[in-house]
């Protein structure tokens, strides 16, 4: 995000544009060419995307504007805003694409008005150019608009860069920018592809994307505009002309409403089309927008287009639009693009019009379906509300404005950045504040990605970054592991250590070896190489994989990792075809796929013995607290049914997993549940100082055989301890007991420990209460994260050696020292679940769902994971829940489908661009049926000698995953502050390196972010603000330790939503698809709305104080806000589509996460809102965490310091 509006952008982008823009744009603007030309140069590196921006920005240079635009791009509103300034902005669009976010620019309310202008201009421009023109125009108007738009463009471009392939297309929406770019010189060459994207995408994207892609909105605008323009020739003219010109006019009532709707949409941009609609509908925002926007109106019109899409979903309109546009888009990405361009545009055009129309006119009707209705309704209100607009703005646009003031605070810092820039561009007004809408919006990026990821992701292309984790996509394994198994921080690794060091971009992979695949993807095939075991390289022991090169007619193969040549065993011999491939290449998973499994032979088993089926042991605390809270009763009741769902590989068969039961307080009670007994027998072991298992036969049993005895036992346990007065518990011996039981049975397995309190009873592993708030913030704070006693580390080691995985369910009423209790679970690949102040009534469901999932999920036992790499790099560090006794083998007593291991790579030599870098992750484990297997994941990435390539192929979510794990582990040995500083520093270095080496020259005051990393600051800020690194006063030490451990084994989708929660407006639904999320900021909340926020651990339903009665009635069955019961943990089942849909959504969210999220209803201005606000991570946090805007400014300062 180049905050800076001016120059920087232009040049850099311009260059890039060439690539992208060429196709679409080239034709478009004659004018652009010039600007682009220059850009093109740079563009090459950047690819089309950026380039466009460049140009855009160039013009915008106005600086401020550009920035705004950028933002605006992200957030429609901004876009709109910019639009306002359009003239100026035009340029901006591109900038947007590029990272340069002009702080001020976006904010600039002024820009908004410009939009109309844009349109206006556009119209003036030729059709084609419309968008482009708009852009150009902006350029013309450079100053203000430029900046603003730039951003948008930039955004688009970025996309391009990032997604180079298809995605770009969709994003290309940027088309506008692109268009601009395209228009420019490049057109010829690049055009086709880009055009496709652009052409197709842009228009479509807008429409289709509109909904999804916020950026689109702007882009749309622009793009729309373009399309329109283009189409205008045909359609556009009318519509556009109408709108565009009208904008200002249009804003006129009629339009205005639509516009209003748009305005809202604009906001949506940021989030997504839906949101747009919502915003619009929701609060008066739209109205406000209108007010302000009216000028924008035109944009709105364009937006409408976008909206419609959303709304379109609702009905024909949308559908039409979507269908039309959407398909194109989708298609475009593929190949159609070209056609689309030509064809697509028209549709869009049409669409736009339609959309426009819809929005404006139709909205009511269309809206009816999806968002439209809402929008429609809202619109009306809006009008009325107009007065209220401001508030709305809060929601969407309003924010911009309103915020600005508010931001003022934050901006102060910004001044450095945006202040200048914005100021200029945003002719409007107080640009001093950085407009949140003008800074990179996660929602925008997410939606952009969704929009461009319409095709299954094929893994065959080396170095291709997969779609974001927030995007639904299908994966086709063509030789590299699916991103569901492996995600890398960089898909284009620097060739040399120097480069890597210079960039500071971490080279890491997040590997989730046993990830569950969606039903439409095939799980890894099981390969049996016979008695000799899997074929491996003689030297490095890498397993047979697609990277092995067969030579000498197939008699030997050369290892892709170490280049050693190995004989092919006779039984594995196969002839090669004329290309040197084995004839049976596609018959063998290990030769054609990225992920597969080998059947391991006895040589791969512990003690050279085929393993026994694993066992599950349930260890239940029956001390006073456990009984009183109802936990014991619940667990026992649940186990009766749950035991029928033990993991099995063949659903037809009974599970071979055996079970055992132990209860404990100060002493342990084992149970003999042998099937031949009439009654279970209890064996009490009081010698906790020297734990042992008192029985063998009858402790671990088959559920079916011993069903009656087990049921009898589970019935009796709660009774037996109902009157217990024992409050002390032990913990160490409990795990020892399970461990010993597994040892005695000579099998691996899992312990489920249900524990309530700090183990203070005299026994090994006895703990003291050491929670001392005074230590927080001091150098001694780190000790609180360390284990209190060494006992558990030793125990963990023993557990791992036996393949004993420990899952811990905690039900504490006070400090239990999670840091220490969690040592064993974390080291054994287990999980910790914590239910503070557990109450049967309200927490039962969450606990039971967690338990069910935990018991049922597939687990591999006694696993060893090893990551092999090709020469030049080496896996040097590992993060996750496991134990390592040497530097290469990751030992996991248990590895379930939710556990991820993050692996960091370092250079130990040079890599070559031709061969790229290979890695192979092999996990040897015992399946839950007792089979020993090897799961192999292969991954190849590109190598680059240009830093720019590195920055173009990164994945921020993965980087954040790595950073968080790295930082949280660092807490053990470093003061919290040092950890935070390190993070900030590294992040600044990464960005500074980019700025210095990859971005085109620009003023130092401009913040330029790599497209792939433009969200790095916002996400990093979330990490820094997490309870772990910056605890609030009410965050207990246990909570921090718990989160710290939890995140240690999270994969990317989980860490993403954890750090940047998903916030969905739920005022309206479109059938089938989710509403577009909004940014995690209070400003995005409308008083009249209802929002759902999920973090992967929490689920909040936020109800605005002035939510409509009908809405409340639909959701809660009561029309009165005050009658909503804040203690609800589930929504009442009401017989209306809204309620039903709402519950569906909640259920679908829960289904996506490995832990059940308890629903918490938060009423606006209720006390509980404090908790909720904690998750609005773009805002300033109560514990002192910086707001996004502030942090961005700070980051900019850091970067500038580094550069100077």
């Amino acid at each position, binding site marked *: 995000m180049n905050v800076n509006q001016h120059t920087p952008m232009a040049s850099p982008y311009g260059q890039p544009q060439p690539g992208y823009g060429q196709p679409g744009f080239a034709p478009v603007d004659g004018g652009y060419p010039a600007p682009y030309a220059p850009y093109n140069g740079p563009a090459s590196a950047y690819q089309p995307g950026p380039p466009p921006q460049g140009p855009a920005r160039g013009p915008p240079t106005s600086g401020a504007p550009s920035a705004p635009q950028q933002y605006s791009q992200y957030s429609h509103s901004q876009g709109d805003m910019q639009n306002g300034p359009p003239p100026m902005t035009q340029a901006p669009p591109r900038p947007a694409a590029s990272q340069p976010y002009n702080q001020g620019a976006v904010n600039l309310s002024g820009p908004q008005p410009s939009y109309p202008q844009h349109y206006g201009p556009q119209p003036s421009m030729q059709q084609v150019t419309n968008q482009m023109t708009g852009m150009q125009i902006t350029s013309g108007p450079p100053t203000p608009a430029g900046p603003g738009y730039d951003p948008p463009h930039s955004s688009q471009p970025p996309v391009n860069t990032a997604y180079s392939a298809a995605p770009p297309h969709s994003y290309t929406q940027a088309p506008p920018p692109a268009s601009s770019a395209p228009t420019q010189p490049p057109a010829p060459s690049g055009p086709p592809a880009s055009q496709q994207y652009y052409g197709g995408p842009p228009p479509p994207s807008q429409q289709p994307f509109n909904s999804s892609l916020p950026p689109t909105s702007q882009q749309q605008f622009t793009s729309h505009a373009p399309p329109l323009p283009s189409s205008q020739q045909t359609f556009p003219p009318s519509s556009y002309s109408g709108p565009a010109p009208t904008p200002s006019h249009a804003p006129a009532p009629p339009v205005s409403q639509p516009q209003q709707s748009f305005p809202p949409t604009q906001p949506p941009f940021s989030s997504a089309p839906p949101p747009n609609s919502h915003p619009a509908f929701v609060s008066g925002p739209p109205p406000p927008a209108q007010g302000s926007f009216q000028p924008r109106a035109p944009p709105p019109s364009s937006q409408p287009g976008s909206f419609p899409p959303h709304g379109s979903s609702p009905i024909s309109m949308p559908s039409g639009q979507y269908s039309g546009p959407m398909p194109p888009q989708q298609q475009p990405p593929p190949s159609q693009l070209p056609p689309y361009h030509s064809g697509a545009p028209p549709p869009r055009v049409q669409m736009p019009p339609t959309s426009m129309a819809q929005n404006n006119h139709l909205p009511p009707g269309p809206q009816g379906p999806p968002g439209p209705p809402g929008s429609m309704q809202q619109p009306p209100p809006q009008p009325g509300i107009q007065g209220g607009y401001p508030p709305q703005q809060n929601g969407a646009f309003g924010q911009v404005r309103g915020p600005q003031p508010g931001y003022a605070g934050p901006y102060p810092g910004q001044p450095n950045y945006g202040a200048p820039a914005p100021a200029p561009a945003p002719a409007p007004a107080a640009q001093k504040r950085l407009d949140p809408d003008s800074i990179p919006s996660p929602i925008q990026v997410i939606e952009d990605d969704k929009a461009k990821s319409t095709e299954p992701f094929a893994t065959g292309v080396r170095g291709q970054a997969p779609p974001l984790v927030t995007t639904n996509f299908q994966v086709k394994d063509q030789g590299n592991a699916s991103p569901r198994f492996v995600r890398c921080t960089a898909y284009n690794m620097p060739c040399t250590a120097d480069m890597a060091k210079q960039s500071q971009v971490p080279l890491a992979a997040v590997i989730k070896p046993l990830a569950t695949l969606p039903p439409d993807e095939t799980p890894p095939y099981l390969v049996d190489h016979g008695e000799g075991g899997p074929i491996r390289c003689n030297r490095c022991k890498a397993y047979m994989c697609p990277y092995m090169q067969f030579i000498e007619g197939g008699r030997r193969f050369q290892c892709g990792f170490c280049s050693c040549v190995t004989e092919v065993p006779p039984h594995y011999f196969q002839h090669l075809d004329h290309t040197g491939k084995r004839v049976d290449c596609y018959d063998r998973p290990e030769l054609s796929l990225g992920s597969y499994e080998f059947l391991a032979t006895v040589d791969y088993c512990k003690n050279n013995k085929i393993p026994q089926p694993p066992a599950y042991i349930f260890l239940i605390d029956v001390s006073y607290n456990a009984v009183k809270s109802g936990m014991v009763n619940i667990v026992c009741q649940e186990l009766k049914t749950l035991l029928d769902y033990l993991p099995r590989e063949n659903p037809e068969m009974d599970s071979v997993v055996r079970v055992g039961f132990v209860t404990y307080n100060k*002493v342990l*009670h*084992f*149970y003999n549940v042998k099937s031949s*007994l*009439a*009654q*279970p*027998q*209890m*064996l*009490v*072991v*009081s*010698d906790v100082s*020297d734990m*042992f298992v*008192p*029985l*063998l*036969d*009858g402790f671990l049993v088959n559920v079916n055989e011993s069903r009656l005895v087990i049921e009898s*036992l589970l019935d*009796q346990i709660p*009774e*037996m301890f109902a009157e217990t007065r024992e409050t002390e518990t032990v913990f160490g011996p409990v795990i020892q007991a399970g461990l010993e039981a597994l040892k005695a049975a000579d099998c691996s397995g899992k312990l489920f420990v249900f524990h309530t309190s700090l183990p203070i009873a*005299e026994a090994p592993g006895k703990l003291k209460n050491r929670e001392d708030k005074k230590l927080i913030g001091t150098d001694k704070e780190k000790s609180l994260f360390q284990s209190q006693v060494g006992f558990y580390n030793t125990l963990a080691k023993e557990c791992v050696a036996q393949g004993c995985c420990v899952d811990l369910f905690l039900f504490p009423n006070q400090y239990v020292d999670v840091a220490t209790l969690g040592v064993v679970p974390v080291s054994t690949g287990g999980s910790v679940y914590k239910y503070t102040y557990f109450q049967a009534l309200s927490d039962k469901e969450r606990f039971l769902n967690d338990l069910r999932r935990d018991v049922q999920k597939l687990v591999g036992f006694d696993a060893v994971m090893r990551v092999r790499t090709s020469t030049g790099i080496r896996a040097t560090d590992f993060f996750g829940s496991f134990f390592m006794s040497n530097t290469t083998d990751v030992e996991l007593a248990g590895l379930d489908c939710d556990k991820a291991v993050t692996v960091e790579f370092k250079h130990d030599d040079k890599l070559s661009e031709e061969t790229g870098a290979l890695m192979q992750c092999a996990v040897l484990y015992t399946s839950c049926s007792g089979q020993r297997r090897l799961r192999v994941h292969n991954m190849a990435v590109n190598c680059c000698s240009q830093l720019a390539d590195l920055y173009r192929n990164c994945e921020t979510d993965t980087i954040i995953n790595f950073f968080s794990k790295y930082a949280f582990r660092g807490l053990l040995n470093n003061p919290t502050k040092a950890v935070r500083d390190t993070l900030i520093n590294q992040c600044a270095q990464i960005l500074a390196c980019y700025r210095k080496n990859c971005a085109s020259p620009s003023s130092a005051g401009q913040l330029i972010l790599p497209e792939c990393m433009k969200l790095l600051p916002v996400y990093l800020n979330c990490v820094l603000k997490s309870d772990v690194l910056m605890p609030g006063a009410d965050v207990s030490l246990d909570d921090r330790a718990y989160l710290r451990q939890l995140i240690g084994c999270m994969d990317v989708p989980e860490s993403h939503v954890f750090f940047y929660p998903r916030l969905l407006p739920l005022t309206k639904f479109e059938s089938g698809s989710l509403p577009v999320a909004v940014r995690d900021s209070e400003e995005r909340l409308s008083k009249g709305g209802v929002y759902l926020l999920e973090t992967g651990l929490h689920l909040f339903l936020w109800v605005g104080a002035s939510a409509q009665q009908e809405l409340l009635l639909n959701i809660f069955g009561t029309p009165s806000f005050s009658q909503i019961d804040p203690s609800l943990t589930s929504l009442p089942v009401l017989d209306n589509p809204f309620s039903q849909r709402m519950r569906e959504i909640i259920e679908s969210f829960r289904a996506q996460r490995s832990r059940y999220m308890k629903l918490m209803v938060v009423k606006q201005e209720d006390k509980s809102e404090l908790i909720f606000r904690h998750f609005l991570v773009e805002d300033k946090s109560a514990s002192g965490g910086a707001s996004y805007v502030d942090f961005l400014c700070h980051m900019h300062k850091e970067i500038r310091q580094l550069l100077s």
Partner: protein
Amino acid sequence: MTSYQEFIQQNEDRDGVRFSWNLWPSSRLEATRLVVPVSCLFTPLKERPDLPPVQYEPVLCSRANCKAVLNPLCQVDFRAKIWACNFCFQRNPFPPSYAGISDVNQPAELMPQFSTIEYIVQRGPTAPLIFLYVVDTCLEEEDLQALKESLQMSLSLLPPNALVGLITFGRMVQVHELSCEGIAKSYVFRGTKDLSSKQIQEMLGLIKPAASVQQGRPPAPQDPAATCRFLQPVHRVDMNLTDLLGELQRDPWPVPQGKRPLRSTGVALTVAVGLLEGTFPNTGARVMLFIGGPPTQGPGMVVGDELKTPIRSWHDIQKDNARHLKKATKYYEAMANRSSVNGHCIDIYACALDQTGLLEMKCLSNITGGHIVMGDSFNTSLFKQTFQRVFSKDYNGDFRMAFGGVLEVKTSREVKVCGTIGPCVSLNSKGSCVSENEMGIGGTSQWKVCGLNPSTTLGIYFEVVNQHNAPIPQGGRGAIQFVTQYQHSNMQRRIRVSTIARNWADAQSQIQHIESSFDQEAAAVLMARLGVFRAESEEGPDVLRWLDRQLIRLFMFHLRRSPFLQVFNNSPDESSYYRHHFVRQDLTQSLIMIQPILYSYSFHGPPEPVLLDSSSILPDRILLMDSFFQLVIYHGETIAQWRKAGYQEMAEYENFKQLLLAPLDDAQEILQTRFPMPRYVDTEHGGSQARFLLSKVNPSQTHNNLYAWGQETGAPILTDDVSLQVFMDHLKKLAVSSST
């Protein structure tokens, strides 16, 4: 005056006492010259159906270090209501309750026929009897089943209010909680870890760890509910326990090839002792240990679990190759002492074909007065009936067992007590009547006998301390009082007092008298006990030499050959077993042990005792040998052939049938009363089991002299042992040669 024979018999019947000498040499010097010390076999609880206990407390001498009980030997001044102690000569007033005493109104304890009298005292709370079963589960299925049945059966024999407890062990030790409904609960202890009594009680939840703060206070049997969990009245848990026993499984831990099952006998006993210690100190309790093999792990282990390492033999012990012996012995001794302090006795029922470690564990029973029963299998009548007989009842319907006995010996001044040999432990009560010369368990005048039965007999050794130059007036009598306090099986506390007196005699002038007062049988047993006692602690040959030097009599020949002194052909366990019984049985039984009785049945006349000699083994005889531990019926060659031919089935040979039945009936009679049940062997000439007989008889005919004697009578014994004849010849030679 009756003959000494009668006198001795009368004394034994009345007081349960057999003295080696019934006239005592009056000086120390003379006593020493007599070789056989003044000593007696005393049966404290000899059954006296004719002796009703009195319902009051004994009157004690008021001198603090005397406390002798008023007895018929005391001089009484009826007028002054004063009595003089015959031991310390203290003059004591009678207590107020004796106000009505007079010449014609004497309390029982003053009547001569009540030289032995039993008092019932009402001191302290009465506690129920406690039976704690400690059961080895590392048994063959068949054995375990039999044992379970025996245990279940035993429940019906217990008085309803008796407390029972159950501990089972194998690799682990389980203490079963008996009070619970539904789920059967037990506390488990690791079999390899020695635990202190306090730890055990903590782990069983009997005391709170915090309670340890109250230092010094013995853990009072607090919360009765807590203790009751493990020890419950039979009537309440009858069904539960029967079920529990019924469900008892073999130790489930796998025993790999070439290994012994891991058996935690040591810890099981510790837990049992610790449990009782904490809950019922100083109360009558029996720990009944049932084992089917040696302890193989943990403290008290006797042999490792590797089958390739055989359990120690005498050979190993002599070579000092028994690596666990000392440690295990020490362990069990310490436990036995702890148990005895609390008055609990420990029985061992060991049934296995191989040794079970009795050598190491014998002290448990020896010190606490418990039983040891050794058999081949729990599934034999030997065990079953013996076990049943433990619960035999007397004419009053009370168990023939008593608990927590304390025996005190008081002597008149001329005599001091050197020690005792029997199932007891010293209480270390030094007093004026304790000799410095120790024989057996000495240095005290009080011993604790935790488990007693009517046949329990102690050998008590005295020393005449009167100096040669301080003659005792003619007609003077030395007196000894035995005071036995115990808990009767009906839970009463009782005190039995036996006061005996013997005349002094001057060995120089009255040597014939003294000689005639010699009780050969008693002396033999008493000397044998000394020998066994020494054998326990010294090398075999030394003991024999000592014994040879001490005395030479016929029985000595057999004693020398007996398993009590000879270990050849006996495992250490067997030796321990035999010795255990030898030092506690009464005189008659002891004699049988030393010199087995051999009866001969034939058509030639009524059954007659015959010489225990190979010459008695004739073809037309049926022999019945009772060696206490074995009961052998041996059919001579001819008889065996006849029997094989089935003559006894023919009416005309009814007499043969009768002849065959006669020894069986006699054997049955012995079997009925003997405890423990002897091994019953019915064999014939040439039968493999005939070895039991052949090993006992005097080998007057061997392969060495068979032809020399050229006789057809009797059966030659294939042994190199010397025959009685040779032995005697040798002795004669020794006797006349100048001894060194």
